[in-house]
């Protein structure tokens, strides 16, 4: 059995936030979460359960929200991956990021990147989610600080602001 640092000169490429990244000398067992954080310098995606239960590591893969902890990095070579860093590449916060700050949806902030990605995914699919649709869409993202009240408010604010833009 090869050790993690002896796996030879193999490499594979991942497409993350529109850029191709070469992943060198990775151990085959590394998750997408590990590779993003430890090899590609993208620590915005967080790990908190390693079982796909908490949603902290939510990223978009080919348009679907997935838990990066459950994806083997080497199997993601064909995929188009978007992380929290890719949502605001020029540093200007998105409407959802702004609403999370304004509505008080951020406390410790550890669940936040995953929620931001999940809410973008929700509003892209369904621009006018009702209360239960909002709750259902983020029920895979555990937050231990807020009790979710201000997060719901943040989603409502982002939803309503987008609707106002549509109607203007």
């Amino acid at each position, binding site marked *: 059995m090869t050790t993690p640092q002896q796996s030879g000169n193999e490499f594979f490429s991942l497409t993350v936030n529109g850029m191709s990244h070469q992943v060198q000398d990775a151990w085959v067992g590394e998750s997408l979460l590990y590779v993003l954080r430890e090899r590609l310098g993208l*620590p915005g995606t967080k790990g908190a359960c390693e079982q796909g239960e908490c949603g902290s590591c939510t990223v978009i893969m080919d348009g679907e929200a997935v838990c990066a902890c459950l994806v083997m990095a080497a199997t993601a070579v064909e995929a188009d991956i978007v992380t929290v860093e890719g949502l605001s590449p020029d540093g200007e916060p998105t409407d959802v990021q702004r609403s999370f700050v304004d509505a008080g949806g951020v406390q410790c902030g550890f669940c936040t990147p995953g929620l931001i990605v999940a809410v973008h995914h929700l509003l892209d699919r369904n621009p006018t989610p009702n209360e239960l649709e909002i709750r259902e869409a983020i029920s895979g993202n555990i937050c231990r*600080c807020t009790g979710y*009240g201000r997060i719901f408010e943040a989603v409502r604010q982002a939803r309503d602001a987008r609707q106002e833009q549509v109607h203007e």
Partner: protein
Amino acid sequence: MTPSASTTTRTNTGTATTSRGVLGTSALRPDGLPKVQGRFAFSSDAWADNMLWGATLRSPHPHAAIRSIDVSGALAINGVSAVITADDVPGQLTYGLIASDQPVFARDVVRYAGEPVAAVAADHPETARRALAAIRVEYEVLRPLVDAEDAIAGSFPAIHPDGNVIRRQRVIRGDQNFTGEVVVEGTYEIGMQDQAFLGLEAALALPDDDGGGIELFVATQWLHEDQKQIAACLNLPTSNVRLTLGGVGGAFGGREDISLQVHCCLLALKTGRPIKMQYGREESFFGHIHRHPARIFMRHHADRDGTLRRVEARVVLDGGAYASTSSAVLINAVTHMQGPYTCDIATVDGYAVRSNNPPCGAMRGFGVVQACFAHESQMDKLAAACGMDPVEIRLKNAMTTGDKLITGQVMESVAPVERCIRETAALPLPSALAETPDVLALPGGSGLTARTSNIKRGIGWGVSMKNLMYSEGFDDYATARCRLADGVVTLQFATAEVGQGFVVLAQQIARSVLGVDTVLLEPISTAIGSAGSTSASRQTWMSGGAVDGACRVVRERLFEHVAAVHNIDSLRLAINGTDVVDTMGALRISVATASRDLVLDETFEHHHRATEELDENGQGNCHVAFAFVAHRAVVDVDTELGLVKVVQVATAQDVGRVLNPLAALGQVEGGIAQGLGLAVMEEIVLVDGKMRNPSFTDYLLPTALDAPDVVVSMIEEPEPQAPLGAKGIGEPPCISVTPAIVAAIRDATGKDLARVPVRPQDIVFG
């Protein structure tokens, strides 16, 4: 060595803000944008060139003698740089918050399943995992002590040199032979709850080049306490152990105790290389302490009209293998057994015991959660026995300022208990369940399990009091430094920002006191004096008091300077908006102008008033201050399947003064969710001392679909003792919501539910 963490830590707190954002406004947190953009550096994001990964080997047995440890197999693995055991600890072999009774590594005996035995440093987390698997430990399995009553009875050999009883404390007051006209009693159980903060334990240790010191970036609640304990174990002068707060992903009490700090530093000093350690979720369940499971017998005596006369209680807290803060948790439990009610006679006997279960210590509510579930269940029984409703009996007995507590201490805090109850009762009730409700709104949710004909609605009440700050003579002071130069304030403090929002509060204080817009924050580190722990609902009061004090001293210096320049008495000067104004003349200059070419730099320590230890009868002025809250819960229960949906929680909380409405609301809603978890979901299940559910798959946490609607009324009666008039608000939200929810389930089902969390089988078969 230049760690990347030092620069990223600076960006965590160094963000300037130009909004006025004074006290009383919903000023936005300076770490908000970095957090939503994934730029905020949590301790698990710290990274250094040439670093190695640390990992911990833990005992699989709750109680065993260690016959031998063979690390040669691990050392033979390519990529492993070090393996350490108890033999590699150069200083004190044990640590602990109150008693230093917990070994850095078990040497001869392991006392709980999950106790650290060895640690490794390797080039990759997977190499480290394999190295742990290659360490051979020969155990002789011993019978575990898992029943707290065995510890009390003395029927089990001591499992630790300090004995099996960590502390016993009575509270005895008044006529011990008194019998009420109405007597109700019950035995209540509280399960072991986990803090389940999202950001797992993580640290990066950087050894000094000469090996004579170390720098640690770590997620903790109290940098200086960690520093003291780490230095003792490393046998280094305290000043050579320098800590900086790594971004903290929640705490809730679970980071008060040392977890990986000493192991991480030992590996760094042994290898001479940076060491990163981070726990996975399963290891986190073993790596930090939990809320004490408790068994509480209570008997209430009252007059026929419902007037509470006497409380009797026997409180047993299972502290697990090591003491942690058990003795202080016990004090909180036994001194809060009366609840927020006037009561002259008490007979309370409490034990915190040692067992071979996982160690327990601080969690939000700290002993009062357990006491409250018992006394509030009792108040409902008393109401029923007296033919009163739950609100009526609580109003009748509501404590007021000036009351004598069962400890003999006079309630000097503002005590608006009656107002908490009345304002909660005045909050609107939720609408009835729709005739054809969305399945997601039903108990059990999208499992499509509930039939609406089986759903019953119930309403329940809980009211609580909670002490603020540390007790029993402990001087948990806080330090802050304020520097004003050219209209810009820079604040420095060691207050652990764990998510609660002290970083924004500190900025608000400085803006209010000094009339500045821009408030910069230095990295949170041991470069300044202690701020005490972020716990016991104390940082708004204590560190807020320290920041306020430092800013006020700087303001005085500024006024003296302006007064000298303009040849007037400095007492005439005041801050108005962003200006210094002469209250008796025409002078008005901006703070920016007034402070040009000046550097005013002051450090301030805030101390709360002194408290006393309890005597053997539990009498004494042991607490600093108190806060109060009422909760009303509405639940829908599927009586056939035993499933609960908490529909709404209404609450009125005594907060003294709201300093940041948005942040205060977030604390209230978040605490309610945690109390809901304890009521119906969360429990670490132990079988013979072994944890059966150390994962987020099996330890259930409230999700967005479990969150109730929360309606809140903030009761603002400024607290004269508090520097800003504000009481701590962190703990009260999670305390009486648990009994309120259980009372609502009782109301819906008629079942006598005496333990939390309430499980489906308790509802269906109980």
